């Protein structure tokens, strides 16, 4: 395929106007020694028809969540995606635009992001939101840096019940920054509150809890809030946005920063990306926030409009003193999230959350009635739960695969102490038939 327009005649005219005979002359300032001789060793270009076939074949080597019944979650969730979303984000005025630097011709994206920010604030119970970050994990890493920056402290307490890959990303981001990460252990699937309180002192920049946590358990932030004494550390919560239609928002528990993965809001699984990290915070932190923020203002005729605001925080103005290096974020994924939240609305999102909760509980209760599967953790859970099995998890998942089921995540992968433990996810997409089929197959494993 070829997406360039020039005819021989065009080329001739342009070369003449520039005053060259050959295009090569435009590269004469590149030293001969570093010029690439010959042809790049890449497959030859193909027609659109061939390209589609080629990629279709490659895509068909993957087994999809349509082919199998999927019970994997763990940070990437299979929720139903209404048709309108792809239609909206396929409007090419949106998806072929750049970051809205020129507000007069970018009001569409700016307003959509302003609305997105509002929805994120509503869900999290916070005062301000940015326009999105790369994903939930990097959003947490940014929140941690923000907390160090704000408090002047360098010690971070992170519960081991947060997504283990999020913890890994936090460690990557902070490893050269002289920031100390203290991992807080868990008891029966919940953050060990005593250990958290013991480690929390006036040198702490922030403490981090996931809500619901990686095991699906709704951490008791109410007790945490009453037990933790007044301190200067920031309280960072990693939250599942869909659960927040049902659960008390972190803001009500005194959270200072709420971050999380927004993929579940209308974005496909897509093998892990692109997703979007959301970040909301208390107003006092707005000037320390990373990334784009859209603000409302008026134009010269007093007409309401939107602009990228507080840009002096950002790299293109502040350079090495910026709050972060982030430039491109995940605007189109944030747009998808906003459309999803609009479509679901106040009642629909709650209904989705309720279905997740009730269906996950139905499965859990019935799994625990089976002979080789056991309850291990305490506390209410949302759409994911942990069971211990007498089987080897790898073997179990292989058996399930024969029945076209993606079973649960083998928790030993992240927690060596959780041998034979399975993390199972159930969203509103699962039917009674599918859940009963899964139960029957689990029971049938010997």
């Amino acid at each position: 395929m070829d997406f360039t327009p020039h005819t021989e005649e065009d080329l001739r005219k342009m070369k003449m106007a520039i005053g060259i005979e050959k295009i090569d002359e435009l590269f004469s300032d590149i030293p001969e020694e570093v010029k690439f001789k010959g042809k790049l060793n890449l497959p030859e270009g193909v027609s659109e028809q061939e390209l589609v076939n080629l990629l279709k074949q490659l895509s068909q080597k993957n087994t999809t969540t349509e082919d199998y019944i999927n019970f994997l979650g763990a940070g990437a969730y299979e929720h139903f995606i209404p048709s309108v979303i792809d239609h909206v984000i396929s409007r090419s005025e949106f998806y072929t635009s750049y970051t809205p630097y020129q507000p007069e011709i970018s009001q569409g994206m700016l307003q959509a992001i302003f609305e997105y920010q509002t929805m994120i604030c509503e869900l999290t119970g916070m005062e301000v939101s940015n326009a999105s970050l790369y994903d939930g994990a990097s959003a947490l890493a940014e929140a941690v840096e923000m907390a160090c920056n704000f408090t002047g402290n360098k010690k971070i307490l992170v519960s081991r019940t947060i997504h283990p890959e999020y913890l890994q990303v936090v460690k990557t981001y902070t490893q050269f920054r002289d920031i100390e990460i203290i991992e807080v252990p868990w008891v029966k699937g919940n953050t060990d509150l005593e250990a958290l309180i013991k480690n929390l002192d006036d040198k702490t920049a922030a403490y981090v809890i996931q809500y619901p946590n990686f095991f699906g358990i709704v951490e008791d932030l109410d007790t945490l809030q009453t037990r933790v004494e007044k301190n200067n550390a920031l309280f960072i919560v990693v939250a599942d946005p869909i659960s927040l239609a049902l659960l008390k928002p972190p803001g009500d528990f005194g959270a200072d920063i709420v971050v999380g993965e927004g993929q579940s809001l209308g974005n496909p699984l897509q093998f892990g990306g692109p997703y979007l990290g959301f970040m909301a915070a208390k107003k006092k932190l707005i000037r320390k926030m990373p990334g784009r923020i859209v603000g409302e203002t008026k134009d010269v005729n007093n007409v309401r409009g939107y602009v990228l605001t507080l840009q002096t925080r950002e790299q293109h103005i502040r350079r090495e003193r910026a709050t972060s290096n982030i430039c491109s974020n995940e605007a189109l994924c944030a747009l998808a999230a906003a459309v999803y939240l609009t479509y679901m609305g106040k009642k629909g999102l709650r209904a989705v959350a309720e279905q997740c909760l009730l269906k996950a509980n139905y499965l859990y209760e019935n799994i625990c009635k089976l002979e080789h599967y056991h309850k291990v953790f305490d506390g209410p859970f949302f759409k994911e739960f942990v069971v211990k099995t007498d089987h080897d998890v790898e073997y179990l998942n292989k058996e399930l695969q024969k029945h076209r089921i993606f079973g649960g995540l083998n928790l030993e992968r992240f927690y060596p102490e959780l041998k034979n433990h399975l993390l199972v996810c159930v969203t509103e997409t699962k039917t009674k038939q599918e859940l009963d089929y899964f139960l029957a197959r689990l029971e049938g494993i010997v």
Partner: protein
Amino acid sequence: MKREKKLIFEISKPGRKSYSLPKLDWIQKDVSDLIPEKLLREKPPELPEVCEIDLVRHYTELSKRNHGVDSGFYPLGSCTMKYNPKVNENISRFKGFTKIHPYQWEETVQGALQLMYEMNDYLCEISGMDYITLQPAAGSHGELTGLMVIKAYLNHIGEGHRYKVLVPDSAHGTNPASAAMCGFEVKEIKSNARGCVDIDELKAQADENTAALMLTNPNTLGLFEEDILEISEIVHQAGGLLYYDGANANAIMGITRPGDMGFDVVHFNLHKTFSTPHGGGGPGAGPVGVKEKLEPFLPVPRIEKHSEKDFYYLDYNKPLSIGRVRVFYGNFGVITKAYAYIRAVGPEGLKKVSEYAVLNANYLMSQLKKYYFLPYDRCCKHEFVVSGKKQAKHGVRALDIAKRLIDYGYHPPTIYFPLIVQEALMIEPTETESLETLDEFINAMKQIAEEAEKTPEKVKNAPYTTVVGRLDEVTAARKPKTRWTRV
């Protein structure tokens, strides 16, 4: 079109809805049986309540208030706003690419792993590097990753004391910001009269404390750093590494390679060079390539191939790795589009892309310098920078020129960047624009230059044709209103 557009919250009416869900009559339990009251939400979030048609009309109208590459010419310098092929949009939506979970067992995602593995190979070939990670989600994320790899390597070889990262004064803001985020101190290198790195200054700065030089080549003035081999030697002699900011890689494909110029680390912006759409500010993808000695430090997991079994897998066993920079493996959907682009155009096509991108820029420059001051009057690469200095004499600033261009139907160039040019207008046409488009743009720029001289007020009050006029950014920043609230 109405000037002021209602917010979705202002359209909302209690009782309206778009959603529908399957019945759940087979579960008798209630939420309150499962979650303690103290953890339950008391007041629902204030989300809009609208019908599907309201939703569609709302967002359709918003889209009409936005300018994309498909709406018209978008010569935004350093952003490579080329045409985004539609076939790639379809391909990335194949269910075999969208409906796969990142934790599926490897044998069920062989197609995805193969695509990423081959993408690594292609990017190695194009960049002249030895290994690639596809994990970073954007260019600046790639910069951070690349610098952390450098830091980890230096620590490993006992050179951890090197605290300085050298950055030219023409560099993208992300370069110093990334260096600072990685714990380095930033030292700025001045440009010389030809718009390139000042070799004497570089020699003075490159020393036993230098970790790296970050360089964009061609640089943000669109000029090729002719002294690249000497630069490379100076930095390497001092024991530092050379980092390539690939924002401007659209100028060099099949023509020269960062690896051959002596760069040790490079990042690409798939959303610039490889035609994936910018999405209004993302998602992008910022793969990072390194030379062999840096390979052990790349993020995990790495994508490997078991040749005998013809099996692709994820390798986490890299003890020296800096770790993860995000969850899972990268912006796979974006990578899919870029992969399709490389397969579609092939090696000759990529070279042609760069040749035409450079041809288009030089053609535009040759015509625009008749009306605008050209601070560096020499052959450019894929972009160039003119100055609004002449027009400033009439009180017309680069910002005014940009706003006036909107009335002519164009997205303005990047303005006030790079910082070393007064009243900078940084123009990147890309290879997908035709001669007619370029000529029309030249004509518009010519008319604006005339207006600036004869009727400067007309330019200073632009734009006139947009849904809103110039917006009060000062008040927006002073009293930030960043969300809607019910009054």
